């Protein structure tokens, strides 16, 4: 496939993967591959198939069609089901619920997988101490899971997963049960652990901020399909579909429907941009980032008047959201800005659209 390939197989390669539950297709024809040491984030709204994909990587579910290969070795396939058992893939999974065994102490939880793997006692003890120290939970070794906090349970779950030194680490929404502050803390903690272990990681989340901050590779999933796969910055800069464009990025980008009126594409009565950006299209969707929409009138720039909805100060500027009919438009105001809900607000489009999409959602321009 790749002319520059050195021959070394990718750490994870997913080919034409399909998973059906009865009549429902949870995962549709997914193709992803990442090199060793990557941090792959699968992101998407709930029910998009990301957890099912992760469970297939873990070997807890078998695919209906397609293949999964770890370092060139097929571990699951539609024809053979789960070829390598969950425990024989050299992969570890951190569960959303942590799944700590309540009858074992923290140290016991971490040691058990090593016992199952028949590590000699001395090496086991050393490793348990090592990961306890790595996660900073050495003091909790003799506690039971019910006796420690949620954040600590999370650390134990991670310690237990990395203890057998898996070459692949899988995370199923690991931070979703933590409060906002702990979540940010654990985010950097997880990245530190990723660097320390060097394991290829696959991380499932519905939080696009987690995806953008942690990933080396991102796959945006929607309805069981990969909408786009690539580096986070590339996805942000060049979204392939309207779904990706509106799902990623803070604040969310604006998507304006526009019709061809003469030589221009117009949003309602307001001509916005030359029709030459999408030859042959009568209707398009224009992507404007919040920083390209300015609150207040600007000379020579097209503008609309919307009803004020809310304002949030961000880094010395204010993010203003206004309603135009049913459409939410987000723009930026210099300094602080406030108004009463329903007040008229003028929004000016100070740059050309960042991207143009067909009505179907596909990208038209580069």
């Amino acid at each position: 496939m790749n002319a520059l390939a050195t021959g070394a197989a990718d750490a994870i390669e997913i080919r034409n993967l399909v998973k059906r539950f009865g009549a429902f297709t949870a995962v549709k024809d997914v193709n992803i591959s990442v090199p060793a040491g990557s941090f792959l984030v699968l992101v998407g709204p709930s029910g998009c198939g990301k957890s099912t994909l992760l469970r297939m990587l873990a070997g807890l579910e078998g695919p209906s069609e397609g293949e999964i290969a770890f370092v060139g070795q097929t571990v699951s396939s539609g024809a053979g089901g789960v070829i390598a058992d969950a425990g024989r893939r050299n992969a570890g999974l951190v569960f959303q619920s942590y799944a700590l065994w309540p009858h074992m102490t923290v140290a016991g939880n971490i040691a058990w997988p090593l016992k199952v793997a028949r590590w000699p006692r001395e090496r086991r003890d050393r490793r348990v101490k090592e990961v306890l120290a790595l996660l900073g939970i050495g003091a909790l070794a003799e506690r039971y899971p019910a006796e420690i906090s949620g954040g600590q349970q999370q650390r134990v779950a991670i310690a237990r997963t990395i203890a057998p030194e898996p070459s692949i680490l899988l995370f199923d929404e690991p931070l979703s049960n933590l409060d906002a502050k702990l979540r940010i803390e654990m985010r950097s903690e997880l990245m530190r652990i990723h660097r320390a272990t060097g394991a290829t990681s696959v991380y499932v989340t519905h939080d696009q901020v987690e995806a953008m901050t942690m990933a080396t590779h991102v796959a945006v999933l929607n309805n069981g399909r990969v909408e786009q796969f690539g580096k986070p910055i590339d996805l942000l800069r060049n979204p392939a579909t309207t779904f990706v464009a509106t799902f990623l990025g803070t604040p969310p980008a604006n998507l304006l429907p526009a019709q061809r009126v003469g030589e221009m594409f117009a949003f309602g009565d307001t001509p916005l941009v030359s029709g030459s950006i999408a030859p042959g299209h009568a209707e398009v969707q224009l992507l404007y980032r919040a920083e390209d929409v300015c609150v207040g009138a600007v000379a020579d720039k097209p503008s609309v008047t919307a009803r004020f909805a809310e304002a949030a100060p961000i880094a010395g500027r204010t993010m203003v959201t206004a309603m135009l009919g049913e459409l939410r438009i987000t723009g930026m105001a210099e300094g602080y800005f406030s108004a009463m809900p329903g007040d008229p607000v003028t929004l000016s489009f100070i740059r050309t659209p960042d991207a143009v999409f067909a009505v179907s959602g596909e990208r038209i321009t580069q």
Partner: protein
Amino acid sequence: MTSTSTFAPSGGSRLLRSGFIMPAILVAIVAVLVVAPLVRILLSTLTPAGIEAWQAVLVSPLSFNLWWRPLFNTMVLGFGVASGCLILGGFLAWLVVLTDVPGRRLLGLMATLPYMIPSFAAALAWGTLFRNSRLGGSAGFFETNGLAIPDWLAWGLVPTAIVLIAHYYSLAYTIIAAALSSVGADLVEAGQMAGARRPRIFFGIILPVVTPALIAAASLTFAGAVANFAAPALLGLPVRMQTLSTRLFGMIETGQNERGFVLALLLITVSALFLWMSDRIVSGRKAFITVTGKGGRTKRFPLGVWRWPLFAIAVAIGLLATVTPVLVLAASSLAPQSGALFSNWTLHFWIGEGGGEIAQGQAGIFRNPVLIDAIWNTIRLGLVVALTTMLLGLALAYTIVQRRGSLLATILSQLAFVPLLVPSIAFAAAYIALFGAPIGPLPSLYGTFALLVIAASAHNLPFAVQSGRSVLGQISADIEESARLTGAGPLRRLFAIIFPLAIRGLFAGAMLVFVKMVRDLSLVVLLFTATSPVLSMVAYRYAAEGFMQFANAITLVILIVCLAASFLAHSLQNRVQKWKES
């Protein structure tokens, strides 16, 4: 005080102030119901006559027969029944919760049924089938049809234990199944990720996690077997096999009250000791409840070729424990000879006139005025006790929850749970000790309906408080507070919010109490007299006198009353809370 003080005596605190009276009354009630009888029975054994009874029971030539031998039998029964229940209940729970066995709903339902059937139903059915000719009289079905039944299978410990296991395994099933379904799939999958195989996951993760439930199930079935009166009385007494409960009954029956009281105290000690020990093991740091967990989802293991064979075994267990006894009782109540259960059927035992050849001239049960009385008494007892129990339970639970952390709440909740440790027949003995003689101006309550009601309400207190709490637990504080913010007064809130939300739980609790009372024998057997007969007692009398068909027929009547009550309560429940699915 500042201006806020004008707002302070609002509805809430007024209730609190008048609320001092209610807890005081409750403490008094619980003291009279629970503490007084137990103190009284203890004091009765400290009189000169009582001391003599202690000596006779514990250190005298009689003590082997009065205490050691019954204790031994009781222990054998307790351990045997507890192990049998763990094996049967555990097997069924594992099958239903953790495997892909077919018909899991059906199996689950079948496993909960035996508890609805009184233990003497199974004992009577056993006798009808297995009775041998050792004691004279007509032999049972098997022996009459040419299958010699050895004594050990016809009488004594073995059949008693089998009958009790058939009765109590459903209790073990319920507890273990609940624990198993709390073992989330994640816990199992985490084990799979670690590379553990199925046996390792079962013994390393699942079994240890449910160990507290296993211990609880074992101790509760142990206590049940130790306290049971009907089964050892029907299957053991004819061959002079005594347990502590039958011994205690025999003493009081023959007027040796002090010795009876001593045995009651000893029985309480034995039963409470085991419950307390199991509680010690289960509580503390090891009292793990599954941590977080997505809940609901459990991992089901494929059984492969064993699916249908194991299904068949489970169905067979259910049929043997529930359907067979009922069928045998029904057939026996129609057959003149228990050797020919399915021929010459007659309705004589139900409605026949007396004076004929059959049954030594005894009339059918519906010709017996005592029986009509007993049906009425039984239903009345069930209803009254259900009502008093649920009212008391609700009041106690409310007070305990409202005053959580206070000394009063602690005392109330501790006292209300004392009857759990006391076997019902010993509890009845304590009531005889307290109310058997006039207290001051009050007449003796012995033999009255009122005494039955009081004793039964007291004995149901632990259950009452528990169900009261669960009922109140469904009504969160916010729900009541949001109604309060609309300005609705306490009475309005009670009828518009609390009552509709609580009614279903109250119904369910009341129904259980009703069924429990209707099928109870061990509590009423001592407190009953000819003036206030109840069905179970009449059945026991018939059986003790050898009129098995009559006893069986009455047991069927009890079953029908219980089933009718369950159905009625079920349909009422669905009617009163339409927003909940059945």
